[in-house]
């Protein structure tokens, strides 16, 4: 079988913290195969990223080029097409960059492409069996792919858990000369940082989070009332922002904020991986959803199968009642 390589994204010299996960995934394809890391960029950023990665991978391919100072997927694709051996298996993170890079790269390499791979369950000859999810994680599928002419596999971040990786003293191979001049039809201009909102949900210990199940803009107030009663803040999943019911600054997930509360109450949220990836710090995760099969129930600590629009006001009422009672008790001489 051809070699396994992993494209490790770096920005400003900081490498993707999932770099070791590629080793775990590669082991599931071929436990004995060495894995080569590929990093692109230029100058000090690239050097420091390569220095970190060579402690994890036996061989690190460095592609230095001024045009790659910012990771423009079209330029990275052109560089990779020049350096990848035929029939390679290339592992890439399934994130905004992998989505930009890999489908087109697979065409140029005439390699098989599979996106958002969550597990690798077996290989027989050139047939690799992978696990993916469909319908926002409601169902999984086994996918069989023919990798005889190579493959580009986009791996879901966090799906392949790296064991404690042994430190290695790897070598860095400079592939820059093979790449030549790079030009693209797309030119990076700048990055605009996310707007700070009225509430910083990343600092809130208790979050009441609403999803599509809240159904309409007017119902946001039901969640806000619960949050007010609890001294919590309201955040949300992507569909609520898409519908403009709450500002982007309240969105939790890969394309929103990463939060680390003590308690996270997910109301009417199905539980896509993009949303769950934004919840860190292992909070008490409570899911309220009327669909008992919602994927959120697989990862939540406590589940309540009920109609939000009825359940939340009753919960709020009860919490207010308790607050009033305990307040009176405190006032007693």
């Amino acid at each position, binding site marked *: 079988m051809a070699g396994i390589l992993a494209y490790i994204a770096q920005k400003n010299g900081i490498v993707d913290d999932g770099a070791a996960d590629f080793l775990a995934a590669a082991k599931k394809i071929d436990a004995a195969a060495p894995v080569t890391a590929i990093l692109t960029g230029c100058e000090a950023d690239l050097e420091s990223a390569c220095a970190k990665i060579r402690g994890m991978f036996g061989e690190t391919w460095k592609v230095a080029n001024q045009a790659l100072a910012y990771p*423009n997927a079209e330029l990275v694709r052109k560089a990779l097409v020049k350096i990848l051996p035929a029939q390679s298996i290339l592992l890439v993170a399934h*994130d*905004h*960059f992998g*989505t*930009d890079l*890999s*489908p*087109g*790269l*697979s*065409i*140029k390499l005439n390699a*098989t*492409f599979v*996106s*958002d791979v969550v597990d690798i369950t077996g290989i027989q000859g050139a047939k690799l069996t992978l696990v*993916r999810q*469909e*319908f926002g*994680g*409601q*169902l999984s*599928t086994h*996918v*069989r792919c*023919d990798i005889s002419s190579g493959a580009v596999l986009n791996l879901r971040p966090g799906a392949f858990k790296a064991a404690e990786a042994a430190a290695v003293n790897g070598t860095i191979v400079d592939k820059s000369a093979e790449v030549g001049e790079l030009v693209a*039809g*797309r*030119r990076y*201009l700048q*990055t*605009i940082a*996310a707007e700070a909102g009225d509430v910083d949900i990343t600092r809130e210990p*208790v979050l009441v989070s609403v999803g599509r199940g809240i159904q309409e803009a007017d119902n946001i107030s039901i969640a806000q009332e619960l949050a007010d009663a*609890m001294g919590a803040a309201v955040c949300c999943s*992507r*569909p609520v922002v898409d519908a*403009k019911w709450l500002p982007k600054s309240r*969105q939790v997930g890969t*394309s*929103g904020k990463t939060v680390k509360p*003590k*308690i996270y109450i997910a109301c009417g949220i199905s539980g896509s991986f993009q949303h769950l990836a934004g919840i860190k710090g292992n909070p008490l995760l*409570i899911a309220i959803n009327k669909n*008992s099969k919602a*994927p959120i*129930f*697989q*990862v939540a*600590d*406590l*589940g*309540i*199968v*009920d109609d939000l629009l009825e359940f939340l006001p*009753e*919960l709020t009422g*009860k919490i207010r009642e*308790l607050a009033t009672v305990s307040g009176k008790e405190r006032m007693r001489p």
Partner: protein
Amino acid sequence: MEILVCAKRVPDTSENEIELNSAGNDIERDDLVYSINEFDNYAVEEAIQIVARVGGTVTVVTIGGEDDEEILRREMAMGANQAALISDSAFEGSDGKGIATILKSFVQKGRYDLILTGAQAEAGGAQVGGMLAAMLDYPFASLVASIEVLDTKKLKISREIEGGNKEISEIELPCVLSIQTGINEPRYVGMRGILQVQSVPIPTLGAADLNVDHAVIGESAARVKRIDYFIPALGKGAKILEGSREEVIDQLIEAVSAKGGLK
């Protein structure tokens, strides 16, 4: 600007609980409500808004069977100028590359400045736009969150990247963009609007019309094949609180209080 939007009809996950069929090889498709893939609907709305600003036409295309025509009519009711249905039994079982190959043949029969797809559909492949662009040698950008027409040769776009940040780029035309949800607010389409376009002819094109090479499409050419569906077993699963609503609320308050969640 001549804009092509590639769309797909999918089971509507907001209207259905997606379940396994009894054989475990497919989802239960009886009584399923279908609609246009949400991402594609945003793409059509974006195309209509661009044409309203700079002129041109919006064409919507889908690959499928006669049932799929309903989404084309829906998008025409929204304001797309024309539509085409690509349909041939030879296309069945195509993988993402096969679909991109068929679309490439369609694109080459026309003359489009801009091609839009949804960022992904129900299977989460997020692949057809990028593949199509590479086949055409057009520039590509995924997860596009805004489009501004600079002139007849280029656009200024933003992509949604990590942490809610936006990556701003210029991209040359013709190009392919995959559209993220939330880029706009798709207009409402009523029954009346759909009835108004009910008799507009929508051409159907097959493999012969598109000169598609049979060796690269359909099930026999697919290098990626779904074998089954199954219910994922992730994590330990939530402890489901049982009892009357009042009892559930009491248990919940207890758990939240124990974590210091009530002030």
